């Protein structure tokens, strides 16, 4: 830990601005680092708008007070059906992006520190460094994987309600039952996702602009650099094999 002459107090080396007079470029580069490419942000942006439309129309179909407010059931149903059915499209389109596929791989794989992260959350440990995470923390990994499965289920049961008789084995009543209760669960989980983004301007900045402050990254995703280094080593080994 070094302090810069003339500054009010000791500066955290990881958050030094490049514009700071006399600040030598640290190994590791500038104060901001790239988190998401434009393609990834577009996938997130379109998915979130579709999801919002889907959840809002669901509320207007389902909550009696809201249903009374807007009526127009046929229109609301149509918007709900199409926003739901289109939900996987941004994801599928995103698969052409290398960065997106690579992040999916990161979300899929659990490292030992993810278990540490989960343990820290379970025991409510939140001192600095208690919750190590790669580019995505264990919570984000489980959230994304669960929501992917839940979305498939919602579309499947939704289609069974839309086209009755698609699968004679499953009655529309059963499909509605799963669709309703899973919708409630998805709503709660989404509220958690949005709430957590609301509390973390650094994370929001990453999704909005594509880059994050290095200090934020080291604080919230302490293993991200190691994760990237390991990936590079793995790739180098694959090339040399």
């Amino acid at each position: 830990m070094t302090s810069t002459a003339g500054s009010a107090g000791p500066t955290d080396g990881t958050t030094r601005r490049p514009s700071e007079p006399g600040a030598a470029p640290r190994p590791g580069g500038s104060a901001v680092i790239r988190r998401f490419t434009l393609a990834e942000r577009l996938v997130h942006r379109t998915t979130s708008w579709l999801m919002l439309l889907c959840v809002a129309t669901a509320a207007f179909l389902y909550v009696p007070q809201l249903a009374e407010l807007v009526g127009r059931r046929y229109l609301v149903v149509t918007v709900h059906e199409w926003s739901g059915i289109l939900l996987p499209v941004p994801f599928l389109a995103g698969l052409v992006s290398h960065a997106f596929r690579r992040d999916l791989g990161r979300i899929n794989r659990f490292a030992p520190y993810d278990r540490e992260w989960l343990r820290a959350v379970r025991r409510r440990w939140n001192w600095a460094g208690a919750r190590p995470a790669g580019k995505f923390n264990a919570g984000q990994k489980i959230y994304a994987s669960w929501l992917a499965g839940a979305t498939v289920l919602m579309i499947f049961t939704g289609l069974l309600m839309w086209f009755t008789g698609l699968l004679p084995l499953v009655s529309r009543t059963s499909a509605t039952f799963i669709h309703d209760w899973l919708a409630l669960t998805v709503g709660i989980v989404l509220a958690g996702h949005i709430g957590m983004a609301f509390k973390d301007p650094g994370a929001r900045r990453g999704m909005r602009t594509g880059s994050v402050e290095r200090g934020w990254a080291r604080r919230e995703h302490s293993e991200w650099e190691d994760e990237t280094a390991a990936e590079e080593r793995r790739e180098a080994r694959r090339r040399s094999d």
Partner: protein
Amino acid sequence: MFNRDVSEREDGRGNEREGGQGDGGRWDGRGPAIGRRVLLGTLAVGAGGLAAAPYLQGGLEKFLGAASQVDPTGIVNTLPNGGGFRFYNVAASVPTKTAATYRLKIDGLVEHPRSYTLADLEALPQTRTDLDVQCVTGWRVPKVPFQGVKVSDLLDAAGVKAEGRALRFTCFDGTYSESLTLTQARRNDVLVALRMQGKPIGKDHGGPVRLYVAPMYFYKSAKWLSGISVTDKVEPGYWEEYGYDVDGWVGRSNGRDDAPTV
């Protein structure tokens, strides 16, 4: 292979945190694909739920029904199907009609077209039913008392002309419509309903006056009834234009096999 990597890493953990570039930084194995397992697990639970739904649903609804009786907060009624009925409205907004403003018009192929006020309808002989309500989307509410005037009484009073074959029902929401054949409409359990569950029908449930067609799916029981017109053929109603069956018998239409309500 993975397990060995884990233990190596966890052993050296404390030191590498201090140094930042400890041995753990060299770990480059790929962890297990937990994400995929979570996704597939979610799908499996969903598929299981779908298969078990007929059994789960009955128990859950009974439980929620009982819970809603003792729940002062009303939260239970906001849960899926906790309250039984669901509100469906196809129009943008529905005007409120009171005893002073409500009218039911009988016209079309009849000898004596006329208009009834709420008081006129209340003065006619009343019929009571106490049967299940079954919606085509799946929900069913057991034993819902309805009370009102038989449609056949109103038809007799109006005098249906010889060429009359069917009825067209219109609603003061300005959008919804329904249809029945004359034979269907003359059943004893087809009512112009004024009371539901022992109370005057509230606006949400289609009040002050709605149609009640006991043997058919509930979309046939048009809410906010304002007109009955005798026609020479069946003119499909609102949902029927979107593919619902015109003859909406419970258990024998719309590709469903629910237990009949009558």
